[in-house]
């Protein structure tokens, strides 16, 4: 297990270096001079331009710039935003809880519905249930989620008026950020209706964000279950006279979970990509919307820092999934 862990860590470090290099390289090949973009329409004097260039280190050779950037990254310094003049690191972590809250809700929905759907479809293979569930899953899998979001807004916000169109919280409520999670903060504030408002704002975005991971998990669970159900040890379990619930839910699912865990881990990347669209449509003040806005504003330090942070997060999740995989699969654990 330790050896397994170390070998995973061994691939983590060079990948981290590469990710840093790529996010660094982007800002240097972006068209347009970042200093001039930053100055905006007011324009600059030649001296001021030179001063800013040296302030941001753009007059140094590339390798020096990279070294400064890399050592900065290791100390949590991702530069400052051109637009707000706040450190990118601080901006990232003030917006991150919003994305995390949305993503956690989405992944909970996806697992809670996708896993049972996949198991049921596999157990009732070829029957009506299987077909209905898998057709639905394929539609979900093929869904352009930005359109799906608009449709839900038309129906639930427009026609029925059940849910708000954008944001995280109704305008009536004000309270302090404690955890950054609206669901928790609204409860802590003790204001009546605040929690309900948070839930209302969260429902549509989480459904939209959950759609594709849900479909992927359901499909993967079904195929993993089908493969496992034809194994000899399932016949052995049935030959012991165990109930179908125990055979499918314990003996089969435990083995089917091994590939499914990987898929759940991989869907974190999908989730973050989906967050870009979902947050933009629902004006959800999280990382995805922040990235899109910064790209349009040409706020290069933010694009660079955000890209790096997101990639590192994906890598971390993959590392955790790998370790979890080792835990759930005894063939790796005991080697």
């Amino acid at each position, binding site marked *: 297990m330790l050896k397994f862990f170390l070998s995973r860590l061994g691939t983590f470090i060079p990948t981290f270096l590469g990710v840093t290099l790529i996010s660094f390289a982007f800002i240097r090949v972006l068209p347009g001079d970042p200093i001039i973009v930053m100055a905006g329409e007011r324009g600059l004097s030649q001296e001021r331009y030179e001063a800013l260039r040296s302030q941001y280190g753009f007059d140094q050779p590339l390798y020096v710039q990279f070294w400064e950037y890399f050592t900065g990254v290791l100390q949590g310094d991702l530069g400052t935003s051109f637009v707000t003049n706040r450190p990118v690191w601080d901006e990232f972590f003030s917006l991150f809880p919003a994305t995390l809250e949305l993503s956690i809700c989405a992944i909970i929905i996806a697992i809670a519905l996708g896993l049972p759907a996949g198991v049921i479809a596999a157990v009732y293979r070829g029957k009506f249930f299987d077909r209905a569930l898998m057709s639905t899953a394929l539609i979900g899998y093929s869904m352009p989620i930005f359109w799906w979001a608009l449709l839900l807004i038309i129906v639930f916000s427009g026609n029925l008026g059940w849910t708000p169109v954008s944001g995280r919280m109704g305008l009536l409520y004000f309270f302090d950020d404690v955890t950054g999670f609206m669901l928790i903060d609204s409860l802590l504030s003790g204001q009546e209706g605040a929690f309900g408002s948070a839930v209302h704002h969260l429902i549509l975005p989480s459904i939209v964000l959950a759609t594709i991971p849900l479909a992927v998990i359901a499909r993967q669970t079904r195929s993993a279950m089908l493969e496992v159900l034809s194994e000899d040890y399932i*016949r*052995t*379990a049935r030959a*012991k*006279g*165990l109930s179908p619930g125990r055979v499918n839910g314990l003996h089969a699912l*435990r*083995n089917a979970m091994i590939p499914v865990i990987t898929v759940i881990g991989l869907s974190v990347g999908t989730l973050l990509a989906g967050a870009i669209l979902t947050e933009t449509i629902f004006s959800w003040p999280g990382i995805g919307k922040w990235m899109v806005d910064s790209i349009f504003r040409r706020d290069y330090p933010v694009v660079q820092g955000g890209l790096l942070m997101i990639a590192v997060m994906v890598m971390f999740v993959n590392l955790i999934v790998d370790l979890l995989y080792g835990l759930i699969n005894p*063939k790796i654990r005991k080697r």
Partner: protein
Amino acid sequence: MSLLKIRNLSVTFTTSSGPFRAVDKVDVDVRPGEILAIVGESGSGKSVSMLATMGLLPWTATVTADEMSFDGRDLRAMSGKARRRLIGNDLAMIFQEPMSSLNPCFTVGFQIREALRKHTSLDAKARHARCIELFEMVGIPAPERRLKAFPHQLSGGMNQRVMIAMAIACRPRLLIADEPTTALDVTIQAQILDLLTGLQAETGMGLILITHDMGVVAETAERVAVQYAGQKVEDQPVDALFDTPHHPYTAALLAALPERATERHLPTIPGVVPGQHDRPAGCLFSPRCKFADDTCRTIEPPVQPPELGLALCHYPLHAPQEAKA
């Protein structure tokens, strides 16, 4: 009275290229404490008929029988729940591939205790004690430690011992062993067979041994049923079968045994068992039978009386009234 009694059992699989009949009108009888061997080539439906008895066939299979009873209780009329109380308890089975027949995600101890918890009223401590006792019975050294092992940490022979321990955990009255030694090394094969017959003598359970190895049959079985292409072609006590086989297929199988070879070249049976698409009319063995004539190739053979080993043949061998052999 028979412990297991099956009359006219047929099993049909729905495949993408049409129905396939794997078992065709087979009768099985096992008395308490008897060792019955079911012999046949691969694809002769011997495993399938026993899986049907256990109720372990996949959903693509259709099972029909005139009678199918265990200890006088009708298996066909039983609810799924009642049947699950029976199998794993009074009626147990072990399989061909020990390595893949145990769940890789659980320790072998867990998998045995699971059967005990389902079918007995033992508490946790008693279950553990019973597991150790079982491991000693099947000859696994250091049982305390082995109970905590995962299947992939044990050898094939050890896993088969675990399978046997699991099957006999609830003291079954009938144990079905489906080619229990095929996947094992030759040296281990004899050990496992000795273990099975020893346990059978000790506990007095019935034993059905599915095999394609005539040598195994000669050493262990009391009675032999020979199956060919899904049909039972002969059924005799073991000595009688080896002395006077009545079906040409049995005779050919016996002639192919190295111990019985009289010439330099070992005789073989030409051709293969007919599959889904090339089933002959009349007797299924006729294309490979050296005695077959036009009757054999057009008319389905009758079942001969018990004196002639219930042979499924128009012209049984060693028939007393004929001077054929």
